[in-house]
């Protein structure tokens, strides 16, 4: 049995026997993230607050990879990927994963009006610990 086996799909015009990885649509030699959960959560943050936290729980039992996006407090029609810097608003944020949750942290300078924030958290089954 040859050692070269599996499934491979390449872009149109590329031979599966010689295509470089960037021209491969799918290859069973390379895994891709499997989505464990895709959820949203909203929080109203009072005026002049200095910090807030939103927690997304999971039951994987290990630390998973994830990604997260948030709305912007002055405009909820677009999203920013977390972590986001201070510009253009006095809002810092970061996010981390543990063996039981993914936690979003936000810190403000105490001058923001009351606003609501909505987060979308996508947790992958792929472990990082």
């Amino acid at each position, binding site marked *: 049995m040859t050692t070269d086996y599996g499934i491979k*799909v390449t*872009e149109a015009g590329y031979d599966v026997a010689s295509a*470089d*990885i*960037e021209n*491969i*649509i*799918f*290859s069973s030699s*390379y*895994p*891709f*993230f499997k989505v464990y959960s895709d959820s949203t959560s909203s929080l109203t943050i009072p005026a002049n607050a200095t*910090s807030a936290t939103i927690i997304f729980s999971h039951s994987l039992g290990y*630390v998973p*990879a*994830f*990604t*997260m996006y948030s709305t912007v407090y002055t405009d909820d029609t677009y999203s920013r990927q*977390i*972590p986001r*810097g*201070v510009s253009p608003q006095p809002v*810092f*944020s*970061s*996010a*981390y*994963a*543990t*063996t039981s949750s993914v*936690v979003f*942290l936000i*810190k403000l300078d105490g001058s923001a009006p009351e606003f609501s924030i909505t987060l979308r958290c996508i947790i992958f089954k*792929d472990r*990082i*610990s």
Partner: protein
Amino acid sequence: MADYGIKVALPGYGVAETDPRNYAFWSKYSTVKIYAQGSGTLTITTPASSNSVNIAHGLSFIPMYLVFSQLKDGSGKWFINRTVMATGDADAGEQYVAGGYSFPPYEELGAYVDATNLHLEYATYNSAASHDIDYYYFIFGDKGGI
């Protein structure tokens, strides 16, 4: 023959579905392939305020990447990508007090990728103490460069 390929629909959806998000896989759309992944520990040794590591990827182009960092050894909290904020969470880094000011816990990851390496550089306000930072990275087999 215009319509050919492989489709795997999510539960509750048929392969006549037209919305890509309702598929686990559709050969019409490329997947983001995990080309390499790994972990390591970087030590910022006093009196330095930063340290860096290069991770050679061996690809012929600038790839996409994703990095998670346990900024405080043993905290069990793995922060995603660049951590720019002082969270008030002691596990976001080391507290630093100097000149009458108390700087919140803070570490910063500066990361970039070129055609040769994924470069991780961690900086800290607290150069008075050595500490370890654990990282876990994914390098994707898809272009992230311009």
